[in-house]
Structures are given as structure tokens and as C-alpha cells.
């Protein structure tokens, strides 16, 4: 089996909030997703990915801002990792 990975960045920490960013990594080797290869997200919300069979395996923690850095902005905060398992396209015999 091979892993398809979908990363969704959401507008809030709620899984059913809007997708604002996304990445794909293809463990089967059939496709080569890369930076800037699409303008439309694959799903409108994180929940829509669940409806389509993606399994959530990691969500970013809710961390309070560090004292003195409450107004700093950096990485996108609400990151969710999903997977689908697919047959290996080149199984060893």
C-alpha cells in the first residue's frame, strides 16, 4: 500500500472552516504535485475532504501566543494532514 497525503490549511481551527491553502504528496509516484500548481483548492472545507474519504491523521495544536509575541504572524496556524491508502502501482513480486 502507498500513502496519498493531503495537507489543508484552514481559516480557523475548526475542521469545517474554509480551506485557504493546500499541498499534495503522492506516495504512489503517479503524480508530482509542486509549488504553485493550482489556484483552486481541492475542497472548500476540511470536512468536505472527510466526506470524500480522506482520513485525518494530524491537526495542528492550539498554542497560546508567546508573551511579547502576541502580534507576530508567521506560519499558517491551522494545518490538517489527511491520508488515503492506495495500491502500490509497482508491487515487488
Amino acid at each position, binding site marked *: 500500500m502507498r500513502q496519498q497525503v493531503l*495537507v489543508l*490549511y*484552514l*481559516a*480557523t481551527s475548526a475542521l469545517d*472552516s474554509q*480551506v*485557504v*491553502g*493546500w*499541498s*499534495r504528496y503522492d506516495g504512489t509516484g503517479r503524480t*508530482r*504535485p*509542486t*509549488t*504553485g*500548481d*493550482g*489556484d483552486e*483548492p481541492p475542497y472548500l472545507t476540511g470536512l468536505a475532504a472527510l466526506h470524500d474519504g480522506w482520513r485525518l491523521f494530524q491537526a495542528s495544536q492550539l498554542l497560546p501566543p508567546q508573551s511579547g509575541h502576541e*502580534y*507576530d*504572524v*508567521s*506560519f*499558517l*496556524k*491551522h494545518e490538517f494532514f489527511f491520508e488515503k491508502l492506495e495500491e502500490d502501482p509497482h508491487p515487488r513480486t
Partner: protein
Amino acid sequence: MDLTKVENYQQWANSAHDRGLRGAYVRRMRTSKHLLTSVEVARFVAQGYLRLDGVVPPELNERAVAALDEGLPHVAYGTPLSAAFGQDTFVHALLALPVVAGAVESLVGPGPTVDHHAVHVREPHEGHAQDLHADAIIDVRPDAFDIQLMYYPHEVTAAMGGTLSVPGSHLRRINETDIGRVQNLRGQTRLTCPAGTVVLVHHGIWHSGRRNDTERRRHMYKLRLNPTVPQVRLWDTADLHDPAVTAELATAFPWYEQATARLEIHNRVLLWRALTGDDLFDVDHWVTRVTNRPTRPTRRSHV
């Protein structure tokens, strides 16, 4: 008040900023220089870049492509821009174009120095884009910034993989390719442009050279400039109080998280205050509200 004669300016007061004072600036007079307006600079502060489409004439574009294919001479860090490039070079001619010179001066002031320059080439069918990144190392200066001039001497089509950039990303504190995991963001810009386009970007902008899916080499010339003067009111400030300035600074982008979008505006206000010397400027009370700490009035003793 000290006055310094500056070419093409009627008068330029040595800024209060230089002497640690606030609020004593003299407005620059509109001149023949192609300085940016306040609205344009506010747009740069909000978006992190400024596009100048097709501003370079065709003959200079042709010279540039030939020179970029041959490679460029090394320029030492910190070389004054005025001394870095011979008068017979395309770079000198590019920086002498009034629209380019005016935009550069509006952002980093007169007399910037060259940080570095480079030729970026994406070969035909170069199959993988760069990871999303900001250049150099994390750089969180609150009241100064470098600009990077990106020059495209030929047309860039969608299939040629023009530079991907993320509007409004420049104030996010990340270090180089640490953001590389992220492939796409709503509202990202995949540059397509006519020949002779110049884009000036804030040093912190997230960007990536995209995959080139054509048979043609894609060229881009990049020049990073460091300011040598305080970046305070360097542009044409005649429209400083135009409501469009506030509107630009309040711009939200589709990739912002709901809550962080408000912090972005807060941080832009702080940068705008630094660039204008106006410590009271605000957008929708965001900074004023969270810095309001009234002190108890001193009681006079009763006689």
C-alpha cells in the same frame, strides 16, 4: 530647520527622524521625478510588491536577454548603486528609466547600495518548482526593508512558470524555505506579464520560481538593494491623507486565516507609522485600542 538641496526637489528638510524627533517633516514638492504616490506605497506596504508592467523598451529588453545569457559580473556587497554598473550596461539603463528610478527611490531612498544581483533561468521543461520561500534569512526589521527588483525582459506566459508570489506574506516571520511544505495558497499570484516588466518586492515576500512547461528558456534578473537613509516619506506625499491609503492598508487576502488577518493589519499600521512618522495613524482602531493605557491623573493636594 536644516535644509539640504536635493536634485529635483525644491526643498527637503533634514528629517526629524534623523534627530530623533517626530512630526516636523516638510512635505516634498511634486517634481518631474516619477515618485510613487502615498496610495501606491500603501499598496506596497499591504501587498509586499509593486508591478510595473511593460515599462522597459524593447531594445533594452533585447540587450538584457543577451547579457543575461552571457552572465553578469560580480558586484561586491555594499557597492553604491551609482557605482556598481557601467554606463554601457543594461542594468544601468534599466535603473535610469524614470519610472523605475522613481519607484526605487520612493521605497529605499536616494543612494541605495547593492546587496547582490543574480540571473535566474528556468530551463525548458524544468520539471520542479522551487519550494516556497523568502530570500536570505529571517529579517524582522520593524522600520526598514530592502527591496528586490525582479526584471522580466521577455513575455512570461502561464506555461512558462512565472514567479509565484503570495500577496501580503512579507510581514510573516519565517526563515527561508521553512515554509516550503505549503504548495498553494488562495489568492497566490502566478506571474504572467508582457516583456519589459519590473516587479519590486519587499524582502520578506514569499515566492517561488515555478515549473517551466515550455520549450523556451525563461530569464529573470534580480537585484537586491539596501537603503542608506531612513525610509521616511521618501515618496510624493501629496495624497498622504487620501482615504484610499487607509483602504489599501486594510486589504485582506484570501489565504489569511480569519483571526490572523486582523494581526496583519495591525502590523501594517506599525510599518506605515514608521514610514510616515505619524504615530497616531490607525486603521479601524486596531493599534490604538490595544495600546490604550490611561494613567491616573495626578491629584493636586488640597490647600
